[in-house]
């Protein structure tokens, strides 16, 4: 199977999207987690910010990341003509 230029572009775009979303995932989980003690004096919706992020905020962000990836990749599939039939 010979890949065409558009296939390579599709994969590059997929990699870029994956990379960006993983970076957000990393910052939300590990960078905010690392500085949790410094963030506890900030209040958010009545919670200390670090507790809020651990108990709720990060989870909502994860759901959004996964949802956005599904949405964006569907569009990308169609843009580059690699979508599946029978849908």
């Amino acid at each position, binding site marked *: *199977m010979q*890949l065409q230029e558009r*296939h390579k572009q*599709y*994969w590059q775009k*997929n990699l870029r999207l*994956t990379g960006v*979303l*993983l970076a957000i*995932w990393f910052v939300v*989980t*590990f960078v905010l*987690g*690392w500085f*949790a*003690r410094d963030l*506890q004096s900030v209040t958010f*919706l*009545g*919670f*200390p910010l*670090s*507790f*809020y992020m*651990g*108990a*709720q905020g*990060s*989870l*909502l962000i*994860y*759901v959004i*990341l*996964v*949802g956005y*990836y*599904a949405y964006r*990749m*569907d569009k990308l*599939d*169609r*843009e*580059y*003509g*690699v*979508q*599946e*039939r*029978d*849908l």
Partner: protein
Amino acid sequence: MAGPTQSRFVSQLKRYYALYTGGFIGFVVLLSILEQMGVPNKMLGYIFLGVTVLLYAGIGILSRTSDVAEYYVAGRRVPAFFNGMAVGADWMSAASFIGLAGTLYLSGYDGLAFVLGWTGGFVLVALLLAPYLRKFGQFTIPDFLGARYGGSIPRSIGVFAAILCSFTYVIAQIYGVGLITSRFTGLDFGVGVFVGLGSILVCSFLGGMRAVTWTQVAQYVILILAYMIPVVWLSVKHTGNPIPQVAYGYVLEKVTAREQVLNDPSTPDGAREAEVRAIFKQREKTAEDKLKGLDAGGATYLAKEKEKLVKTVADLHAEHDTDPKLLEAANRAVAEFPTNAATARSRWRREAETDRDKSGPVMAHAEPFAGPDETTRDNKRKNFMALVLCLMVGTAALPHILMRFYTTTSVKEARHSVFWSLFFISLLYITAPALAVLAKYDVYTLLVGSSFSELPSWVSAWASVDKTLMSVTDINHDGIVQLAEVTIGGDLIVLATPEIAGLPYVITALVAAGGLAAALSTADGLMLTISNSLSHDVYYKMIDPHAPTGRRLFISKALLLGVAVFAAYITSLKPGHILFLVGAAFSLAASAFFPALALGIFWKRANKTGAILGMVGGLATCMFYMYITYPFFGVNAPLWWDINPISAGVFGMAVGFVGVIAGSLLTAAPDKETQDLVDHVRYPNLDDDFKSKVS
């Protein structure tokens, strides 16, 4: 599968499960009417557990199949939404349902590592694995390793690792099943295990993945209702707001304020706490002194201590008006005195530790990595991060979860179904911290400060079931409950919430049914993973590739039965250490699978040598670290960089990645066919060239 048939199938499913959910709610209402009419609690418990188990069995029987694709991957036509629910039930085990809120109650912020780890891992599943595995479209995870890396060695290592982590995990589930059935029906633990096992088998035995899928959807509905109802009730009671996830910020503030009062000796409540803590401090010192004496004197010291106790008994006998209770206590002290230095040391060490915990100030619930000094805090932070990483990567490597993404209709559906999975899972994980805070508020304000003569009824009820779950002792003899006098086991929080909130018994039974659904659904998925690995990967792919369908399924079912009985046997020995078993499964999966799977998709250069090196190296490192550091094995070697044994996976993963990369670079690149396979997996559709792609 053509479009119209699938959409008819979807709307049919929606109708069935809507009816089912309505029916289940009706059933709960009916039972609560029965309760009002005076049907005894035990009867309600039996009806509740019996009906739900029969329901699962019924779905299992209706979904029986003798088709290979139906048996292994539910015919690959599970819609994203329903696969999301099935993953949810598959994912959330007894540990999540019963244990998580308790862990959060006991360790506050630090317990959030589990919440983060068990949800954030799905980001990795979505971005790095699920769509590609679906495109690959075989039956098991070792299938992928076998095809991608060639030969039977990577496949065999995959089978070994899949069985290892699924088996450690399934033991924990069956244990949960036994615990719940025995506690709520009064059956013996062993009988409970086998009753639970029977219902697991009926589901998976006849219909394989197909039956397990539709049962798991049904189980998700029950478990999420069972989790939500008591928390919503508790939230309305305390805040007037029916959405606990929003409302508990306000309760958390009150809990924090209460913690400060209890830690402040200038307030009346704080002064009483300080008094109790001083007593525990004294007890800790006594235990430490005994330990020191033991270290210096060994067996001689032990004998001397025993002599003292015997003398006390003799003295008491000599007095003619001895209090019989005192005498009994003295006699018991002699009878229970440790017989050798090793038992003495471990018992006194445990005593000293419990007393030390009790003698410290109340831990602030919302404070991250709390500790007396900078070193402790840094250490906690480091371990928090390591645990989160292991749980996340483990999530993205446990075969019973990844397998579920083979069952969707397409790559697109696989991506959507990870979204629904995470959505359905997050519902519970966002609620658990709220439950922990609400329950804590009740304990801090209602229980603490109440009089020993008027304890709430749930306290005595649970104390009589199990002392480790609930015990209250009047340490300073003032007749009033202080926080330091209360011992609460983590598992109590979820199981007792309905009673704490003053709900009817039927809700308690509902929670038990929810816990059972969580344990059974996870056990179903795990059992199937194990037996499929053996029947499909070992028997069909390696021993007899020409085996006819009938024989393959027969072998699979026979193995399922064998695995189930073996697992139940192991569980009935009560190996204990449930949390460690669960944690170990994640670390093992993360070390063995993740590097080889992810690099196999994203790095064409990865080859067979690399995969073998990475998987074996990762798994071996992880197992070795657990072996040398986990107290159970008795080696007790020093920790590496202070990382706890539960997070052994961080080392395993690192070695795994280095192994795959080094091994691949040192040997030749994989052949053209393998590289084509990687391309095949990367694009949802590479074969059709849609000319008219965008209009």
